[in-house]
């Protein structure tokens, strides 16, 4: 389920083991990748997964969502110099080879980048060990209003399947 409302009641069940943070602009061609995955999650609503759209998450809010998670997945389209568009990505968040995300160093009262938010959570000891980036490499972001390419739509389906499998695995390990 997606969430940005009042606090859950004190008797609320434990949070879903897998938190997915989705980055993407639905109006910007291939950069809509995270939004495509969000649409798929809305439609399938797999058990064991909670997801949040980074763009709708105020600065430092994602940290509030980390407690009790077994795994975090960041979903985004990335531009990775030297790597052709359409490459699927599944990398550990803290692996040195991870490509930088757009606006990775942004910090203000309005906005904290997902990357910095995860860094801060790591400094605070709030991050589970299992944090990965799921994505696809893209070329220059499309014009506003353009549709994602077939390659990106296919990659979104791949990420959806992966999330469902990982959620099932996380649930079975509880």
């Amino acid at each position, binding site marked *: 389920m997606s969430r*940005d*409302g*009042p*606090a859950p009641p*004190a008797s609320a069940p434990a949070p879903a083991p897998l938190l997915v943070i989705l980055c993407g602009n639905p109006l910007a061609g291939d950069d809509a990748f995270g939004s495509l995955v969000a649409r798929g999650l809305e439609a399938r609503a797999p058990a064991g997964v909670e997801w949040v759209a980074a763009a*709708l998450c105020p600065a*430092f809010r994602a940290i509030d969502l980390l407690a009790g998670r077994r795994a975090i997945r960041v979903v985004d389209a990335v531009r990775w110099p030297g790597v052709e568009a359409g490459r699927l990505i599944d990398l550990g968040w803290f692996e040195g080879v991870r490509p930088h995300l757009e606006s990775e160093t942004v*910090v*203000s*009262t309005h906005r904290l980048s997902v990357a910095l938010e995860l860094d801060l959570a790591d400094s605070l000891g709030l991050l589970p060990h299992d944090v990965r980036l799921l994505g696809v490499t893209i070329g220059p972001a499309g014009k506003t209003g353009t549709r994602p390419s077939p390659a990106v739509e296919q990659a979104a389906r791949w990420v959806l399947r992966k999330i469902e499998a990982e959620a099932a695995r996380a649930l079975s390990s509880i």
Partner: protein
Amino acid sequence: MSDEKSKNDRGPVAREIRVGALARVEGEGAFSLSIRDGRVERACLEIYEPPRLFEAFLRGRDFREVPDITARICGICPVAYQASACHALEKALGIFDKLETPIRDLRDLFYCGEWIESHVLHIFLLHLPDFLGYESAISMAQDHREIVRRALRVKRAGNEVVALLGGRSVHPVGMCVGGFYASPDEASADRLGRGVEEALSEMVDLTRFLAAKVDYPVLERDYEFVALCPDGQYPMNLGRIKSNRGLDVDPEEFEDAFEEIQVGHSTALHARLKGRGSYVVGPLARLNLNHEKLHPEAAALLPGVCESVKAALPWRNSYLAMPARALETVHALALARDILKRYRRVDPSYVPVGPRAGQGAHATEAPRGLLWHRYRTEEDGSIAFARIVPPTSQNQAVMEEDLAELGARLMDLPDEEAALKCEHLIRNYDPCISCSTHFLKFRRNRLDTDAAPPPDPVRSRGETP
């Protein structure tokens, strides 16, 4: 990006640089300090984000759309924009005096949520690293993990208050002209009240920490402090506009006392008191003018805080804006807790309102200071005219004056170190230009002795509706 060379009678002078290409991120600014013969000649806070034209595109819109449109001006203080807009329109539409205590309480509660999240975010994640010598909250968190974790818990309480009344914590949509679209159920309020109580306890401890463990630089100036000053309550949604130098006007009379001017180096208008000049809005102004109206739980902390920071009120040192914010956060948490504790569902949650021709102006206290709106409506309820004066524009002139004062003390420091100290000073005001920790591009120009200062065209804001 490129050097601009200007000429005067004495020939070319290398003295000015434009940094326009960096204006791609919302709210970026720059700062320059010009020094001649060991003296600060000019300090400029440059805001070059393109004008956003909200006042213009509100024209012709239905009055009911205004709160949600103006809320989009700011991602961290949307409640303030909604509150100023709603109150001003309620005056224009003749229902301002019909709003009763339960709805006004909800508005205060909503505002408390915004103060809590905005103040805590600024104090602990953007500003405290300056005082403790860290480059960011992330590096600070490695050494002060518990402080940051507690601060995040307090901030979360603020987010949840906003979400309770606004439907969501970012760009909330709950407030409307006349009240709220809906009011929360009592069980949700009760549950949140317990969380706010815990956050209050955390914030009391954190405020003591900030007072006792942080060394505050001293830069005292004889400011004119301007804030709302309501009778019997700390300012938030209501009150006359007053200052420590005798200003006392109704928000409807704002334009009689204040003016905005355009300066060449900023796309944000500078505000000043007519015939008097710069002034300060924000937590320091509110506290200095209203400290006796703090919630008792915040007031109880005040003597100890004053003793720890070695300064009696009024505080004329802008670095003390940080403990002022902390005290206001305690106030907001205690007030929110009280409102939630006595809460009974408000039904109906708004005063019915219809279109009419009218005019109204109102100011509320955004986290960063006075936020003033004025609207004129047509018979059909459409907006004929809108004017908005945000707090950061009101503080720009005084920030530049502070920088000039500080710059004179930094002559012997290397540029990089001087830049850090200037950035720190600017963050005292928590300027809402998406104040990223690296938002300032620092320039210190050492001018030739014979060089003339760069021109800075100034013109008044057009007043014609």
